[in-house]
């Protein structure tokens, strides 16, 4: 076989026209070449993977997992914070409402008190004025009565004098008083 291979045909498995004789897969001439380069390629891939690629990808995946986990935790926390804030807001709102009610009530009470006070004062003023007026009327009436008495006594004395009857002043006054007493 070796004698048949010419310089141009590199192997016993290749014919002189360059095409394969039989299955190239079964050609023994090439086996060790393939094995050598295969082992080299596998070792190269193995080292690239174990030294660089696989640790890097594992780190990336772990980092991503960590980021996702921490993000979820952060989201949970933020949600709790939001709920707390909402609760606080609602509580503030309710408080404000209660406070407003209280203030309104207080103001109302104050105003009512003021009104009551003013009314009481006005009533008192009216009462005082009324009392004073009554007193004045009383006084006027009293003085009027006194005047009437005096006029009556004077008139009676004059009449008695005119009639020519002498009568002392004291007797006339007493008689007039008696008459007035009877009139009342």
């Amino acid at each position, binding site marked *: *076989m070796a004698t*048949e291979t010419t310089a*141009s045909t*590199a*192997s*016993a*498995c*290749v*014919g*002189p*026209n*360059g*095409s*394969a*004789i*039989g*299955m*190239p*897969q*079964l*050609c023994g*001439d*090439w*086996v*060790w*070449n*393939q*094995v*050598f*380069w*295969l*082992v*080299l*390629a*596998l070792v*190269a*891939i*193995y080292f*690239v*993977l*174990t030294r*660089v*690629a*696989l640790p*890097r*990808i*594992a*780190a*990336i*995946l772990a*980092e*991503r997992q960590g*980021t996702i986990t921490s993000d979820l935790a952060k989201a949970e926390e933020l949600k709790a914070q939001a709920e707390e804030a909402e609760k606080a807001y609602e509580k503030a709102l309710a408080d404000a409402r209660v406070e407003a009610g209280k203030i309104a009530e207080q103001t109302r009470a104050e105003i009512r008190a003021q009104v009551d006070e003013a009314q009481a004062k006005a009533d008192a003023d009216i009462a005082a004025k009324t009392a004073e007026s009554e007193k004045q009327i009383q006084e006027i009436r009293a003085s009027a009565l006194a005047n009437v008495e005096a006029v009556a006594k004077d008139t009676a004395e004059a009449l008695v004098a005119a009639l020519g009857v002498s009568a002392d002043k004291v007797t006339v006054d007493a008689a007039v008083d008696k008459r007035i007493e009877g009139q009342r």
Partner: protein
Amino acid sequence: MAENTAGAHGAEAAQGEGGGLVFHPMDQFIVKPLFGDGAVHMFTVTNVTLWMALAVLCVIGLMVLGTSGRGIVPGRLQSVAELAYGFVYKMVEDVSGKDGVKYFPYIMTLFLFIVFANFLGLLPMAFTTTSHFAVTVVLALAVFLGVTILGFVKHGTRFLELFWVSSAPMVLRPVLAIIEVISYLIRPVSHSVRLAGNLMAGHAVIKVFAGFAAIAAVSPVSVLAITAMYGLEVLVAFIQAYIFTILTCVYLKDALHPHH
């Protein structure tokens, strides 16, 4: 030797016809030196070197450059890298168990190499490294020897309980043990042939259809068939990488928990 010469003459005859159908579906699998055309020795830089190097570069591009942003919100490439990571990690964890996660980098290496070699092989004019038994056998043997040694290191001779089906009746156990041992030993074969065979067959079929495209009458059908096959091969490229990886996980599980 006689067969080879006959094949060579046959090929010559096919070419000699001129204008007739020329099928060279297997030529795409030829290993040749990248520079010049001498013989292929162990350290010769060949098309195997080129396409494996491209696979390595793709892995670096996806897994290292793609994740260089280290974004909490990933970009496109980083998403794919993370998806690949998660996909294989979950597979290892689900199939092999929690203690299998320790071997995740090895399985990830296998998966990424196979998946990129498969997809690069789908490029026109590409050389599919994973269509060669020499490659897949090394991959499968690495898994087989790895899990077998691991099993014995972890469990000592109790690892052999894997073959002793304690749930079966006593009479059947020796028979089952023989079957179990044979099926265990056949694992690297099926593991490697499945991958290489699928890829080789698909690529060869595409080439055969491509040969038919030379005939004007059937070329539309041929082109459609190539398109359909290509779609299927895209599927196969991923599925075979997935199958290889998940079987590795299953074997690893057997090594870690050999008790039935």
